[in-house]
């Protein structure tokens, strides 16, 4: 594909040299800027506390202490916090799918009366900066209107607000809009009701968009900090991020760094496994934030 630099310029001897130099520099900068910090964190966790506190820092650990990771796991009770985070993120994911998919389907294919008003009211919430609702949503969560439930310290305090996601509904509706109505008509003639049509026809062909919404949901929930910080005052119920921030000052640095590395692993693994969907979600997500 033709880009800024013409292919012929690249083929010339001078072009080849310039390209080589630029490529090498870019590679070096990328390794230094993006790989080295991760190397530094992982090897930092492997150093002894004395070595970690020494000035100047060492590039390669003099002594290796792989047991720090095991120490971090037990000292920080990482198992419990992993489970908490998993429950919070997994539930947020399921809630978003279970609530937003039928809603988007109804708005896209059943087109009820006032459907456009409902969609408009939902999309209008996209104009609110997320944090502008922080305080009133917190107040609401402490005492739900009519029900008078207090969701503080319950994972539902994350799950339910996560499902009120206009962007998901917008993405899904846009995808459903492209599914030809003939397909649904055919299902109807075969005697399938709307719910059955959604389950058996729409969902199987919507796998790409469901993957994008799922990944966005899990990554957002896993990375979130300020909302879990507010709704999980009970230290036993906190997510990894909130816990790490809470213990950061008191923990020996090597244990803390090992904990940070372990807490990041699931997201890095997820990225390596679902690169394609994540990058697709990124371009879809760019029209949001």
């Amino acid at each position, binding site marked *: 594909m033709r880009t800024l630099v013409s292919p012929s310029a690249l083929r010339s001897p001078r072009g080849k040299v310039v390209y080589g130099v630029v490529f090498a520099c870019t590679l070096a900068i990328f390794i230094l800027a993006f790989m080295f*910090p991760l190397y530094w964190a992982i090897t930092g966790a492997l150093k002894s506390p004395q070595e970690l506190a020494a000035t100047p820092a060492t590039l390669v650990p003099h002594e290796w202490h792989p047991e720090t990771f095991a120490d971090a796991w037990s000292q920080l009770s990482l198992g419990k916090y992993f489970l908490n985070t998993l429950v919070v993120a997994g539930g947020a994911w399921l809630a978003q799918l279970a609530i937003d998919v039928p809603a988007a389907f109804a708005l896209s294919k059943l087109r009820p009366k006032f459907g456009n008003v*409902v969609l408009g009211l939902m999309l209008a919430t996209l104009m609110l900066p997320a944090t502008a609702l922080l305080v009133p949503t917190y107040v609401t969560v402490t005492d739900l209107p009519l029900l008078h439930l207090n969701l503080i310290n319950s994972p539902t305090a994350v799950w339910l607000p996560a499902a009120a996601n206009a962007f998901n509904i917008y993405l899904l509706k846009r995808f459903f809009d492209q599914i030809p109505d003939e397909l649904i008509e055919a299902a109807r*003639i075969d005697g399938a009701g*709307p719910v059955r049509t959604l389950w058996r026809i729409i969902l199987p062909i919507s796998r790409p968009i469901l993957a994008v919404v799922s990944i966005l949901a899990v990554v957002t929930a896993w990375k979130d*900090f300020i909302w879990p910080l507010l709704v999980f005052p009970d230290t036993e119920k906190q997510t990894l*991020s909130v816990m790490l*921030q809470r213990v950061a000052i008191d923990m020996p640095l090597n244990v803390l760094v090992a904990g940070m590395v372990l807490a990041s692993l699931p997201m890095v693994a997820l990225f390596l496994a679902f690169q394609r969907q994540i*990058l697709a979600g990124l371009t879809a997500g760019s029209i949001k934030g």
Partner: protein
Amino acid sequence: MSSPRSSSLLAWPATSSSRAGRPAVSQEDRRRTRLKRKIKENLTAYGLLCAALVVFALFSWYPIVRGVLLSFQQVDFVNAPTWVGFDNFAKLFEDPLFGVAWRNTLLFTGLALVFGFAVPFLTAVLLNEIRHAKAFFRLAVYLPVMLPPVVTALMWKWFYDPGPGLFNSALGAVGLPGGQWLDSSGTAMLSLVFVSTWANMGSTTLIYLAALGTIPGELYEAAELDGAGLWKRLRHVTFPQTRFVLLVLLLLQIVATMQVFTEPYVMTGGGPDDSTVTVLLLLYRYAFVYNDFGAASAMSLLLFVALGVFSAWYVRLTRKADQS
């Protein structure tokens, strides 16, 4: 939003084709069955919508109203809230930190735009020309985006440590004096911007890269035939062709960076000398340290007013793009 649709599509249970061949029914009967069908269809639709309507009502629409009300109330959660008019706003304007927080936030946003805008764009232009190890570059630049922001913030706090931190060790190794980074009010904010740029540039870079990929190659060819050098091609082809994406991400970045919280909260706590107290950090203090939800809501309202324009503009732009 949705295109006008034919009335036959409105009917869910039966279509004109399935009606064909049946014995003739009276006009009246047909109208009644159509009405019944419509009601049934609307009931199904709202049945599927009800969960979404409940969560939106509870966690979006109601809090919007509640937020506006709270801004004008005194709330202590013991006594019933009392109406205090603009007292909460007056209180904010009397707080010397209020102005500081806005100044700091604008500084953060400004600096984040300089770095967070130029660096990813130039990186994307560069990566678009590179023909080898493309997958590695994409992976590397996006990896920090996947790290939990708290981990990034804690990690960089340690890198910035004036003692055994990475930066001062590296500077010391080449014989340069170290900096105070987070511990000096002159550099603290800049250090936070640097972290935020590092952590978030992956997504913007890849979005720019995707936009660059859609530029027709003939445009560059034609420009080159007209004698346009590298810079002129960048200026007259690349820029105009990516203008829309640049604008969208500009708005998005303004909205996102004005709400910065995690970095100052985790890395500096607002210090030194309040040099990194941001609007959201102050809002957090009002609500969750001073327990003054009225003033905190007033602050949210001001933040919303400040950002609403950009958000509205952004939503309009993306919808327009979606329609075309």
